[in-house]
């Protein structure tokens, strides 16, 4: 249906451009136009399947944001605006899904490892992963290996993401990975942060490394069957 595809496209565009709602003045060329908030509402009223709104509207937009960020055509602020627009759209969709599992592709447990207090990079990963349709459980910073293990115990289906910003604190990833793999050998672990490399990921037995949030999303999606 033409109307369906055009409204889904507009929703995707609102995410790409960070257009939250009609009241938000940014971006200036979309001033006084509907944003993700109003358009998702309208799509629901038109009877479009919520799952379709989520995947072909919101997530399609977020995918473009990831690609643009990776190509350095946009930067963190645009990603934050996109995530905000995404959240505004999601609010309308939530009631249509019986459980959080139905709205999510999977769960990611995210945290900055013991000894390290850096937060912002990890949060960005969390926001973009959420935007890609995953549930994110953010354990915060300075997280001990046993706290990661306990979190996986509560949600055994999770993929774990570890962050560190210094070469010294990065060493604590090793212990965390070892403890997690010992307790839950099947749990997939991805690591990241400024000093981390793919070689280090191999060395400590992590399943993957990604330099940025879109890389984390790619890895997460590769761990589940496409929907």
């Amino acid at each position, binding site marked *: 249906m033409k109307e369906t595809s055009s409204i889904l496209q507009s929703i995707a565009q609102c995410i790409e451009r960070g257009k939250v709602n009609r009241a938000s003045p*940014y971006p200036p060329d979309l001033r006084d136009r509907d944003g993700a908030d109003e358009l998702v509402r309208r799509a629901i009223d038109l009877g479009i399947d919520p799952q379709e709104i989520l995947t072909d509207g919101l997530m399609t937009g977020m995918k473009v944001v990831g690609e643009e960020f990776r190509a350095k055509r946009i930067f963190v602020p645009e990603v934050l605006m996109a995530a905000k627009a995404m959240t505004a759209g999601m609010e309308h969709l939530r009631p249509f899904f019986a459980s959080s599992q139905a709205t999510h592709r999977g769960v990611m447990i995210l945290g900055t490892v013991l000894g390290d207090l850096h937060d912002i990079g990890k949060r960005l990963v969390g926001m973009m992963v959420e935007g890609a349709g995953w549930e994110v459980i953010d354990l915060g910073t300075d997280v001990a290996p046993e706290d990661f293990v306990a979190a996986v115990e509560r949600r055994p289906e999770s993929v774990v993401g570890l962050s560190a910003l210094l*070469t*010294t604190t990065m060493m604590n990833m090793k212990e965390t990975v070892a403890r997690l793999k010992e307790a839950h050998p099947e749990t997939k672990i991805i690591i990241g942060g400024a000093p981390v490399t793919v070689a280090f990921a191999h060395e400590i037995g992590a399943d993957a490394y990604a330099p940025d949030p879109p890389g984390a999303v790619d890895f997460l999606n590769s761990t589940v069957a496409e929907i």
Partner: protein
Amino acid sequence: MTAHPDMHETESSVREFSVSPERLRLTPEAIERRIGYGDESAPDNVRAAIEEMLAVFDSADPFRCGFRILDPGQVAFHPDRIVCGKVIFRTGSIIGRGLKGCSALALLAASAGPDLSERGRVLISEGRELAGYVLDTIASECVEQCLEHLESELAAATASWGWRLSNRYSPGYCGWDVVEQAKFFSLLHENFCGITVRSSGLMVPLKSASALVGLGENAERKDYECSLCDREDCIIRNDG
């Protein structure tokens, strides 16, 4: 600072400054660059957030920074290390080359304090992610500018001795392991500029930085530092 460099450690070799936000004069352009926007300007809403958060920055309490000078009698330079009495910095050869000709050493530290990043964190948790991120970035730029400020104070303090300054090198850069941060701070008095170092080498508050600068009549500042370095995969490499 009038003491002669041959004089061994006295209180005059340690100086701490309190730098007001207006003194650092952070510009919206500098913050845009730090976020990643090169020559093109940032979108209007980002520009607006930067201006709003620079006003918050301007009302912040002064920032603490300072240096200690180790005079020629207290320090020996080697191609890959610097010996300061019992403390040996294994800086590696890149920094070793950069310090060629130096006879004295300054240890620099600066901190934006905990307030700016804490306010940034609160903004983010209140749903003002952009403003919070911008304030966090401003705090990073503030630390860099404090180091720049220290360098000019250092130049002014030592110019009358005929000393010049080398480039600035930080633990964790140019092959110098960040683990040496603890040694670095062992040469400064406790809680220097409000900074404490964790066993991992992490400085608290997070928005803090440390660096050394070589001093002496033959100290040299090199322009294209990155080309000296052999770490091809370094993320801050900028030799094109």
